[in-house]
């Protein structure tokens, strides 16, 4: 027979272990951030943002083209991912029980879980195989990854809008479509913006789908039909290279990328603070 004292000891020990687990879980994050700042900050300079990549041995190379490339790719992805995702979210929130709604809901979760490299080879098959690497193909691959993310958060946010609001608008003679757009969508705009920002943060750092689509480029290019540089691609190429100078640039690039991603993630949190707070409190 276990004594009450030993049972409480076990209980206290296990609770302490959950504290340890929490500490162990955030330790890698802290280490990664510390290393990024320590190794990246010293390599950051104005020239990193303004200069083009230079050959090995030549000092002062930068990633100007990769930064612009990443922003362009995000832009194309948003043009595809946001309208389709929000439209699908509207459908899911309003026609909750049609077969299409069940299929789209389930498959958007499945799509969300597909490896990004699979999306990459799909975009290659669709857009690159016959036409060559292009910024457009990279943007389409990233846009396809955004769709399920935006769809599900939009649906979730629209469902939090009280029904009385819809009924009030309909009772005043609003058409259904106007109710959806002017009342329901507008009310949950902050939540949808959060979802969009989370999706952007997620795709901004994606590398695998860009390997065979945007491909990377060491020259200045803003053409949609040409290969284009991207920050994550450039970090990858530099970090597996054998040159000290390129390693330093990779760390600097990673610091810039993580800053971009963290700023977007934190912004997303502040747009709708209550959403995450509610989950824990």
């Amino acid at each position, binding site marked *: 027979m276990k004594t009450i004292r030993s*049972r409480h000891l*076990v209980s206290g020990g*296990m*609770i302490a*272990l*959950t*504290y340890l*687990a*929490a500490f162990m*879980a955030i330790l*890698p*994050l802290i280490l*990664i951030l510390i*290393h*990024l700042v320590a190794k990246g900050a010293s390599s950051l300079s104005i020239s990193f943002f303004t200069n083009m990549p230079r050959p090995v041995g030549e000092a002062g190379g930068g990633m100007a083209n990769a930064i612009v490339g990443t922003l362009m790719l995000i832009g194309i992805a948003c043009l595809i991912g946001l309208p389709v995702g929000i*439209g*699908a979210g*509207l459908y899911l929130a309003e*026609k909750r029980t049609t077969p*299409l*709604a069940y*299929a*789209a809901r*389930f498959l958007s*979760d*499945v*799509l969300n*879980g*597909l*490896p*990004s490299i*699979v*999306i990459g*080879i*799909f975009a*290659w098959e669709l857009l690159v195989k016959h036409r060559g690497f292009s910024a457009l193909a990279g943007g389409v691959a990233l846009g396809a990854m955004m*769709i399920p993310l935006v*769809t599900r958060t939009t649906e979730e946010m629209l469902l939090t809008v009280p029904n009385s609001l819809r009924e009030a608008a309909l009772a*005043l*003679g609003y*058409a*259904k479509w*106007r109710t959806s*757009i002017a009342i329901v969508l507008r009310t949950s705009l902050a939540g949808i913006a959060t979802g969009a920002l989370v999706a952007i943060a997620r795709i901004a*750092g994606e*590398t*695998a789908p860009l*390997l065979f689509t945007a491909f990377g480029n060491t020259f200045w290019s803003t053409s949609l039909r040409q290969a284009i540089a991207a920050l*994550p691609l450039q970090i990858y190429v530099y*970090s*597996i290279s054998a040159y000290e100078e390129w390693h330093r640039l*990779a*760390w600097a690039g*990673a610091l810039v*990328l993580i800053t971009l*991603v*963290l700023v977007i993630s934190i912004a997303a949190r502040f747009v709708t603070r209550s959403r995450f707070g509610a*989950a*824990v*409190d």
Partner: protein
Amino acid sequence: MTALSAQWFDRERRRLSLDQAAVGDKIYGVLTGFCALIIPALVVAIGVAIFAAAWPALSKVGFSIVTSSDWDVAAGKFGAAPAVFGTLVSSAVALIIATPLAVGVAIFLSEFSPTWLRQPVGFLVDLLAAIPSVVYGLWGIFVLIPLLRDPVMPFLRDTLHLGATPFFTGPAYGPSMLAAGLILAIMALPYISAVSREVLLAVPRSQREAALALGATRWEMIRDAVVPYARSGIIGGIMLGLGRALGETMAVTMVIGNRLEISSSLFAPGYTMASLIANEFSEATNDLHLSALMAVGAVLFVLTLIVNAIARWLVWSVSRGRAK
């Protein structure tokens, strides 16, 4: 007041006659329906495109793409068994490390955390999911691997005498299955803990109160009353983490060593399906090679599809139970 809203109502009704409203509704319904239709269409298109592209290789080598270890592009032999092995083993290592930690974090956040710690710790764990995979890879190459090479691997092998088992033998190069497993563990952790925390919070309060009232300690309450109630949701979270680990590409490619060999030792370099595609796709020498890589992609597609479908089903079954 009433006059005003009646006036407004009339004006509004004139502006939007009922016919117009019906047309608008129709257009709106078609547009949103089309958007919703894109999602299933996309999944089907991805499946069809990849299987069609994989067909030439699949029809030639058949099942040996996953059973044979002979990958010789020049000879037209495409056996990706080491990559399949590497994908499964690195993901298994990741789950073995990440699951206890992630469930521990979830229990901490849902039950034991002081209120002031809850938000920041939850936020930081969520942030782990926001770090780009290439940044994990960079950190893996320059921080984790040197750390493994010098104190960690020799310590495991010699000091702890784990070298006696087949899993921790051989020279400590650094790039290895172990490095990939560790990185994947860090990457899968936030997914597992987010789902686990959610299902733990969905366990009714009465469940906890009943256990405490029967004299359970706080840990016994968790173990006997809370976790069993949330079990299938937690397993769903683990499956979701597994799906992430199976398909993760960049970070793994950067630390696993990229060698097509099957070794029982976690110290040995390996390969995964995703990194095989990432490394060879843009340098594919002929159509059959490309098709074989597509076939590897098809295997990965089916594997993650199954794992994710099971994960969603488990998580949904818990949340449906909550609604009742």
